[in-house]
């Protein structure tokens, strides 16, 4: 794993995990709504977890993510986890917005908060939307 500092972008080849509640996932149609990837009401940016922070296999990675978030977040049985490749998220959004919007996926580990009984969430990351110009002016679809 390349050396990444807090606040750095996560490599395009890596993956993030996003929990999606039933309201945003229609199981019978196997369809997700775009709002699933927008910031939740209590989020500034869309929260995700960087999977490669933990060692594979995937089950272990997911279990560790869930354990770290156990008091911060309520998972429901009818929700799902969506695993996304960072490069795909960035490419698709750039393509669909004709390059007007660029996303960065930033590693933002969270410290423990004993006053609220929150554990540290070291793999926490955020999907940040920036104007293409801010992100370097690239209009490419690639």
């Amino acid at each position: 794993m390349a050396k990444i500092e807090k606040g750095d972008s996560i490599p395009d080849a890596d993956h993030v995990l996003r929990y999606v509640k039933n309201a945003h996932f229609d199981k019978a149609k196997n369809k997700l709504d775009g709002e699933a990837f927008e910031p939740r009401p209590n989020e500034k940016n869309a929260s995700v977890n960087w999977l490669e922070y933990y060692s594979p296999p995937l089950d272990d990675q997911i279990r560790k993510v869930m354990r770290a978030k156990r008091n911060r977040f309520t998972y429901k049985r009818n929700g799902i986890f969506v695993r996304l490749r960072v490069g795909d998220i960035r490419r698709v959004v750039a393509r669909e917005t004709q390059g007007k919007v660029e996303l960065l996926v930033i590693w933002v580990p969270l410290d423990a908060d004993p006053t609220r009984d929150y554990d540290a969430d070291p793999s926490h990351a955020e999907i940040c939307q920036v104007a293409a110009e801010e992100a370097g002016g690239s209009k490419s679809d690639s």
Partner: protein
Amino acid sequence: MVVERDMTATVAAHPSSGVSLATISSMVTGVALVSAGAWSAAAEKIAPLLENPTSLAAAVDALSLAPAVSELIKQGADDLVRNIRSKLEVIYEIGVRVAELRDDAKESGELFSESSQADFSKFVSRLALTRRPSIFLLDNGNLRAVWDNEKKELIGLQFLGDGSIQFVMFRLKEGTEIMDRTSGIADFSEISGKLDSLAHMIW
């Protein structure tokens, strides 16, 4: 039983007419949607009435028509019943999904807009859909219905709860690879007009 009798009368009067299909569809969906909170339950009750169309056949026989004509009418009646049944299935599935979303929201203390649901019910009852959309509950409590296909055409409708609908539509221009994208806010009748060009996605 009332529904079955009314249906028989309408079919006998207009055996092969598109008008009778529309009339019956709207009648059945109207019945199913009378009580917004129990639409799926209503559809569930009506569906068995359509399982056995013998009363339709009996009504046709009673008209004492030539056998060939009679057979044609019965065939039309069978098609009609199949069509209504598929519409009822869609209504039932929509009702199940909406009830699930409402229950989830209630349990989690999240927003669920009854007025958005009422608008959605009205929309469904008017259009008698044969393709069930994906249905989502947005964080603002409104319902959103989405139809899409493998060509990446899409219809997304958010029911705002005041009679208006926020829409986004992607439609391939005929014979081209160009995707027409439109969005905005419109009322029911405007939306119905816009849906004409994307009818293949919802009917």
